[in-house]
């Protein structure tokens, strides 16, 4: 015992003795880690790990009526999604949960993974230990229905980056590479390891291979339980068969593999070890796949010779909602089936097994340990996130170029009509117009780029944050860091062309001020949109919202379209909150101070402003003196936009994406 204990100390195992935590069986853990044969131990035979669901029920409350009535005025309706489910999943078995849509399949997986949002009744045991969310994360991996992968990474890169984020911090890069190679080999991805993942635009690997990549990522941590939500949806028959046979191999190597499926084909029937059939949240059948046809035959529902038993029994257990009579008829049939199953010997045996399993272990005195691996360090997470974003960006020529050049594409609009700027009285109008473009265009381009580039990264973040890989802050921070160099370059190209084509105030320091302002606005435009996209998930709405904020603040805060003093007070106060006010003041002061205007004797117009100072005194008093303050304000806005973006993401939370 003492030698064991020293081993454990060396491995920095945290010892938790709380009642409700799901404890790790020490002997099991050590066996698994050292790949030694288990000591032929005392009176206990070798235990196959099991996952037991006892009396699981699940309720969600949903609001009735239109959303604008608000949460307080709408009626709440309790809806029972799952009712009294008893299942034992055993290691080494591939279990399929069947049912028509709305039967509660996905909710069942959510409950096992502790990701459900409603009220869960009943208990989930791993072996005989009651599981909590914190701990199930260590054992179980959840493969969601949609693949969220970055299109431009290769398969190996995708898995490697995922490994860097997932595997314990102590693991060296050589060890990680080994793990990655193993995962690639296990999922049969060797032949495409260096091909790009691809997506709707870029051609890449096939849909089935993409699904395999998602599974391979979840296998990296060597989970004991693998949950898959509709893994075969959208795949053709060959790919489906191939995928299910891979999953079957994984299961037979000593894992609990559970998948949901709603329209299975007959050819995968034989690959499942156990089958659960759900209807309206109740169990219609759970047992060996081979016994299913026999069971229903005994109940008086034989399966025709040339029909897939899956199709046949899923149909048998679903509700026909086409009209009221059919609905009542099928509903009562399903009730009968549920009743029959709960009285059947198969179900009794199930419950007996579960009880035996959960009772047996608790009598044994074993030291229980909860092993919590060291997560990767913050530096590694940031390094990895930034690296992944950069690789993804570099590969996509369109996005890469648009990050660098898109801002400059607006230069012709700004410059072509204007040409070299003059110094007569009318050129004051041109200069103000140019400043208007200089604050509007970089911000707007920032919005456009963020709308185009950010959504796939965000969706991946949602997925990975759910898996608990990194925090919102590190994700947004690395996004902000990775865009800075590109924005610095594109703002530089833009500034150089605009400045020298139009011939603004020629001096290095003034150019530097102009450039800095353009850069800050470009950056803020992008970060603001990122924040908006954390609130509105639809990119179109995010785009319009950001554009609206931009236009409103240009209108009231710059003074280009409306001068401050005679505006309504509320708008004057509001303008202090906008970055546009400070940047406009900087740009105007930078351009107009020290400028002389000619007064050609034309017509009967008086020459209003012979010097730039006079113009500033009329429209932007004290702008030159406030230059330093305004720059501090710009810096403050950069930081606070980032801060509010993080806050927005935290408050909005992660949607339950399947």
């Amino acid at each position, binding site marked *: 015992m003492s030698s064991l204990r020293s081993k454990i100390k060396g491995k920095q195992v945290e010892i938790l003795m709380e009642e409700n935590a799901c404890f790790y069986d020490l002997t099991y853990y050590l066996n698994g880690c050292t790949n030694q044969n288990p000591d032929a131990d005392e009176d206990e035979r070798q235990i196959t790990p099991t996952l037991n669901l006892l009396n699981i029920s699940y309720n969600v409350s949903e609001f009735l009526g239109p959303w604008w009535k608000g949460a307080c005025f709408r009626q709440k309706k309790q809806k029972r999604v799952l009712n009294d489910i008893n299942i034992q999943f055993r290691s080494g078995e591939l279990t399929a949960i069947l049912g*028509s849509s709305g039967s509660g399949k996905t909710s069942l997986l959510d409950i096992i993974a502790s990701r459900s949002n409603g009220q869960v009744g009943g208990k989930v045991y791993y072996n005989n230990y009651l599981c909590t969310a914190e701990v199930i994360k260590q054992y179980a991996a959840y493969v969601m229905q949609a693949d969220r992968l970055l299109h431009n990474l290769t398969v190996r890169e995708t898995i490697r980056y995922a490994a860097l984020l997932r595997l314990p911090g102590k693991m060296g890069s050589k060890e990680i590479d080994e793990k990655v190679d193993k995962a690639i080999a296990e999922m049969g991805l060797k032949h495409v390891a260096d091909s790009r993942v691809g997506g709707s635009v870029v051609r890449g690997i096939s849909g089935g291979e993409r699904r395999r990549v998602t599974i391979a990522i979840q296998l990296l941590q060597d989970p004991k339980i693998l949950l898959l939500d509709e893994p075969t949806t959208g795949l*053709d*028959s*060959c790919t489906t*068969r*191939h995928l299910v046979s891979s999953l079957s191999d994984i299961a037979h190597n000593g894992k609990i593999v559970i998948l949901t499926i709603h329209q299975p*084909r*007959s*050819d995968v*029937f034989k690959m499942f070890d156990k089958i659960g059939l759900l209807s309206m949240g109740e169990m219609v059948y759970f047992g060996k796949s081979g016994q299913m*046809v026999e069971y229903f035959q005994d109940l008086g529902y034989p*399966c*025709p*010779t*040339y*029909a*897939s*038993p899956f*199709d*046949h029994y*899923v*149909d048998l257990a*679903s509700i026909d909602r*086409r009209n009221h009579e059919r609905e009542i008829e099928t509903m009562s049939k399903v009730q009968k089936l549920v009743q029959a199953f709960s009285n059947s010997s198969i179900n009794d045996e199930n419950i007996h097994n579960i009880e035996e399993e959960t009772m047996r272990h608790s009598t044994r005195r074993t030291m229980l340990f909860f092993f919590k691996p060291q997560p990767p360090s913050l530096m590694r997470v940031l390094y990895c996130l930034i690296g992944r974003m950069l690789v993804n960006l570099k590969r996509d020529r369109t996005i890469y170029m648009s990050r660098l050049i898109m801002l400059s594409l607006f230069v012709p*609009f*700004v410059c*072509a*009509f*204007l*040409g070299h*700027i003059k110094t007569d*009285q*009318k*050129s004051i*109008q*041109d200069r*103000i*117009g*140019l400043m*208007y*473009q200089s604050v509007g265009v970089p911000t707007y381009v920032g919005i456009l780029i963020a709308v185009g580039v950010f959504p796939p990264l965000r969706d991946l973040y949602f997925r990975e944050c759910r898996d608990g890989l990194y925090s919102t802050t590190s994700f947004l921070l690395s996004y902000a860091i990775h865009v800075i160099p590109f924005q610095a370059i594109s703002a530089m190209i833009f500034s150089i062309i605009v400045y020298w084509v139009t011939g603004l105030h020629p001096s290095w320091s003034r150019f530097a001020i102009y450039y800095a302002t353009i850069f800050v606005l470009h950056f803020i435009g992008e970060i603001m949109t990122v924040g908006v996209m954390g609130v509105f998930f639809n990119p179109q709405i995010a785009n319009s919202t950001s554009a609206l904020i931009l236009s*409103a603040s240009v*209108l*009231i805060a710059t003074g*280009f*379209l*409306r*001068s401050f003093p*005679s*505006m*309504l007070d509320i*708008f004057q106060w509001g303008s202090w909150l906008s970055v546009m006010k400070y940047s406009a003041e900087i740009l105007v002061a930078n351009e107009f101070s020290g400028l002389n205007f000619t007064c050609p004797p034309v*017509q009967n*117009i*008086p*020459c*209003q402003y012979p010097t730039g100072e*006079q113009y500033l005194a*009329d*429209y932007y008093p004290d702008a030159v003196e406030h230059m330093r303050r305004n720059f501090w304000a710009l810096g403050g806005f950069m930081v606070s936009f980032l801060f509010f973006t993080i806050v927005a993401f935290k408050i909005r939370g992660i949607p339950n994406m399947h």
Partner: protein
Amino acid sequence: MSSPTEVISNVEEPQEKAPTQTADTLETNRRLQIDLSVDKLCYTVNPKNLNFFQKLSTLQMPWEVTECSGPQKVLDNVTFTAKSGQLLAIMGSSGSGKTSLLDVLAGRITVGEILGDVYLNGVQQNNSMIRSFSAYVKQDDRLLPHLTIKETLMFVAELKLPTTFTSKKIEDRVDSVIAELGLRHVSNSKVGNAESRGVSGGERRRVSIGIQLLLDPSIIFLDEPTSGLDAFTAHHLVETLANMSRNNRTVIMSIHQPRSDIFELFDRVMIMTKGNVVYNGEAAKMVDYFTNLGYPCPHLTNPGDYYIDLVTLDPSSEETEKSSRQTMANLLQNYTQKRSVVSEQEISVHTEEEVPMMDMLNMINKFSQSPGYFRQFSVLFRRCTRNILEDYLNLSAQFIQAFAMSFVVGLVYYKLAYGQSNIRDWFGLMYILAALYPYMVILDVIAQYHNERNYLYCELEDHLYAIGPYYFAKIFSELPLHTFYVIVYVIPAYFLAGLTNDVSVFFQVFGLLYLMIYCSRSLAMLSSAILPNFQLSCFFAQTFFSMFIMSAGFFINLDNIFSGLQWVSNISYLKWGFQGLVYAEIPKLTFECSVNATVPCIENGDQAIVLYALDGGSVLESVLAILGSIFAYLLLYFICLRFIPQKPHQM
């Protein structure tokens, strides 16, 4: 032969009896029984031969198209016969050529080379002849979401049925189709779409089929009618199709994953792989056929799934790929040998029971009396108006948008003063008014028109109406609401900002904004017709808008605009609008001069206009210039509609 009164009584009767009698409502009294035979049909596509707009509409760069160059054989030597009164299912995995075969038969192919003959009742026919006897139901439902089922069918019936039909007869026909498809209980529900709730997916599919049944065709093609439907609905739909075929119709449908309960409903089955037929015959004999060849169907397996998989290439490993290729070749060879004996007989048999040509010609004549342009226009006008007015959500969104924009602008420029520093504000106000709504309207209109491409393209392909009536119906049906929104847009801003309190000034401002916003609409209509997808159209329209706004005279003084680009300013409707607004409002203003001012003073609006280099115009001139732009855009829009295929693309 049945009189109209009998037809009415049909409608009241239970649905099962209806089909047998309602079929007789058309002029010809008796639907022709037509057997369709196809002999050695080949179809080849060469991607190199696409023209410019076809390439553009695949959304690929010119250099990317060449990647898949080389002619591809989509259909290879397809021979089969579909008999009247039978339901024929074409099965095969994706890419096996099912849809292409239906496209070819229904005459929807514009590119590629088609060889082979098609016989109707043993007589060789050309494409237009087949089209007059057949109807094609495409895979996706393209319906106007805000009409009820009955309205949808009524409008199509008015466009499709011959002019000899009275409105009473048209309604009877629609009722009988509704009854035949079992839609009576939902006939007054809205169709709906993804955003707004309506009838269920299966019912929507039935409406699409109903539209094609209005003319009572003898042959019906359906492309994947069951995809996206749940098991019960799919079964029920195929049952309906089987019933339709019993009623002396030839029904041909494609399906890629038939469930066993659906498979039992088929009379005949054809299995395709890579453009070749590997089985064609009675559904019940399919298992025997393959069993004889040494491929029995395992116990508890759906034969449809099993045999489709059998003829699909399994690329999961080299071994399986090789063996599945071998199986395919083997089956193909067996089938070709068998067919060469059978097919000759099949076609020759039918030449004997040839239908008199007179009957055929009668049928053709029936179609020549389709409604004229004016009736098409009036039906489309009513349909467009109805669809706009029923879309409450969009109506209120548009209303709120127009009002909110105007209200905010009005508040920002609330009671605009007349000081020296407000001179720029006055011009700014005119600029904002001239640019804001015209800009907003562009994106809305492009999104709307790209949505409408969904059904426009299909209905034009169906020859439901001509492009001219659609064009005018569209333009005229939108005018009343346009007027309403402009009123909503003008009034709050006008009075909040305190523009000149004068009727003639108000109407000048209103008229100018009305025309400018309409001009934006027509620019947006043009760009949505000229380019294949939403993003490209937006880019196109926004580029023009940006150019026009830069040269409008507010940001850059008109005197200082680069001389080589002065012409842009002259064709910019925004410049003319801005100038017109300035002329309507600003000359009447006098500006205050403070006594101790350090800078010289601009006393009145006329001086300010000279400073902005906008002098020398008039409101009338602006109005004429904008009208010119509107006509130019609308004309171009018509030309684009006429010559560019409006094929929809997913956004």
